């Protein structure tokens, strides 16, 4: 054990180092916002810090300030930064029980609309969009459906449109698909080539991929289902509430909202406008006019 005085020294040095990094991080976030209009100021700090450090490492900078300098002076650097800060990690039919619930409880409601609009926000490389398309297809609803798949990471969107994935993922995804109530084999929706699988491009026919930033962009469609999973997990409470407000405003009354399994409405005031269909699966509905009135009346 170091002597007590040494310990005090150590602690002071450590706190100074931490404070310096915090300053650098704040300046980086500010540069990103002022120079490029990308606002990460309300992302949950722990994960953001981790991603920024990874960027420093990946681009061989000596500090976060080195990143900031490149961000300010090199026009081509922004896409690399966005790619590094976005976390386009996904699976087809991730959490199969959720997709099973969508299939069993939400699709029958969607079936009552002549035209169905779905917004999938934070679509990453498209794994969940294609999962939705397959489910709608199997329910005989896809012809009258349209899915908006949005993300703020252009690289991920590009990959999503291509629908090409490493073959090693196919096994897990096939299992997920079956657990989610799939009636075929997932393999009937893709062709395998060497180390890759390519999803049937016909699945793309009713999907629009678009760049949309949940922090700065507005509502653009009237949706019957909004699926946004494992995106809010990266947002601080106020940004989470902001985003959920977007979803509320996009949803028709009675429209469904599906979040990630570890996300919840608990910290968002706008939760009052939703009711739980299955709280464990994070499946909610925008309250209908009647329910809203009953609630306001009771309050």
């Amino acid at each position: 054990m170091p002597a007590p005085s040494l310990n005090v020294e150590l602690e002071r040095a450590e706190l100074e180092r931490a404070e310096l990094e915090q300053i650098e991080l704040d300046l980086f976030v500010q540069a990103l916002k002022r120079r490029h209009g990308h606002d990460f100021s309300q992302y949950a700090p722990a994960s953001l810090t981790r991603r920024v450090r990874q960027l420093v490492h990946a681009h061989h900078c000596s500090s976060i300030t080195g990143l900031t300098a490149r961000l300010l002076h090199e026009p081509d650097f922004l896409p690399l930064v966005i790619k590094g800060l976005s976390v386009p990690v996904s699976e087809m039919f991730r959490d199969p029980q959720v997709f099973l619930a969508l299939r069993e409880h939400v699709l029958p409601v969607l079936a009552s609309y002549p035209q169905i609009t779905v917004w999938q926000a934070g679509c990453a490389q498209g794994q969940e969009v294609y999962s939705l398309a397959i489910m709608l297809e199997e329910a005989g609803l896809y012809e009258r459906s349209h899915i908006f798949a949005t993300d703020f990471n252009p690289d991920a969107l590009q990959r999503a449109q291509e629908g090409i994935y490493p073959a090693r993922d196919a096994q897990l995804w096939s299992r997920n698909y079956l657990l989610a109530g799939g009636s075929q084999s997932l393999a009937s929706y893709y062709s395998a080539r060497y180390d890759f699988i390519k999803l049937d491009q016909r699945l793309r026919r009713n999907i629009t991929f678009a760049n949309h930033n949940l922090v700065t962009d507005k509502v653009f469609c009237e949706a019957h289902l909004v699926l946004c999973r494992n995106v809010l997990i990266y947002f601080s409470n106020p940004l989470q509430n902001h985003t959920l407000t977007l979803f509320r405003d996009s949803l028709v009354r009675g429209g469904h909202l599906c979040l990630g399994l570890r996300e919840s409405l608990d910290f968002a005031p706008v939760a009052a406008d939703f009711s739980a269909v299955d709280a464990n699966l994070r499946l909610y509905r925008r309250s209908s006019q009647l329910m809203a009135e009953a609630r306001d009346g009771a309050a």
Partner: protein
Amino acid sequence: MAQPEAIAIGCSKGGFNALKLLLGALDPRLPQTVLVCCHTASGTGVLSGLLASHSALPVVEAVERQPAAAGTVHIAPGGYHLLLEHDQHFALSVDEPVCFSRPSIDVLFSSAADVYHTGLIGVVLTGANRDGAHGLAQIRDHGGIAVVQAPANAEAATMPQAALDISGADYCLPLEKIAQLLNHLCLT
């Protein structure tokens, strides 16, 4: 010396048995927050449920956006990385697995080191991969204390050995001695 504020424990293969022993021998008066990342944790609350009956301290699964509590063992849920914000609230992420693992010990250790600085004890127990070694090095860099289970004493030696190789340790002990050490460091 100031009392440590938190203990972060990482383990993988053989981890359940090791945790049973370790948590079971911790003093129920420990005021520290205990954070546990065990790769074999599955979906929802199974591991915390199983461990609760072996521990004098309360054992719960860490919940997103909820505070880390003193005198409580928090287990990282399966499928997500567990991180801490500076206000000692939990955050989860689905970032890529690290060393094929999510939750990853490196991620938890590094984030806890950011929050507790010199007031953190990192403990690497039995396991069959190298996760945790870099995280432990970061804990040391930040002035925290590193404890590693003696590889010969571990059900799987790879993980504690990697921790010794990459980070080194302030203490390298068999499991039974680790509980004694933690009680000593944390209560005096």
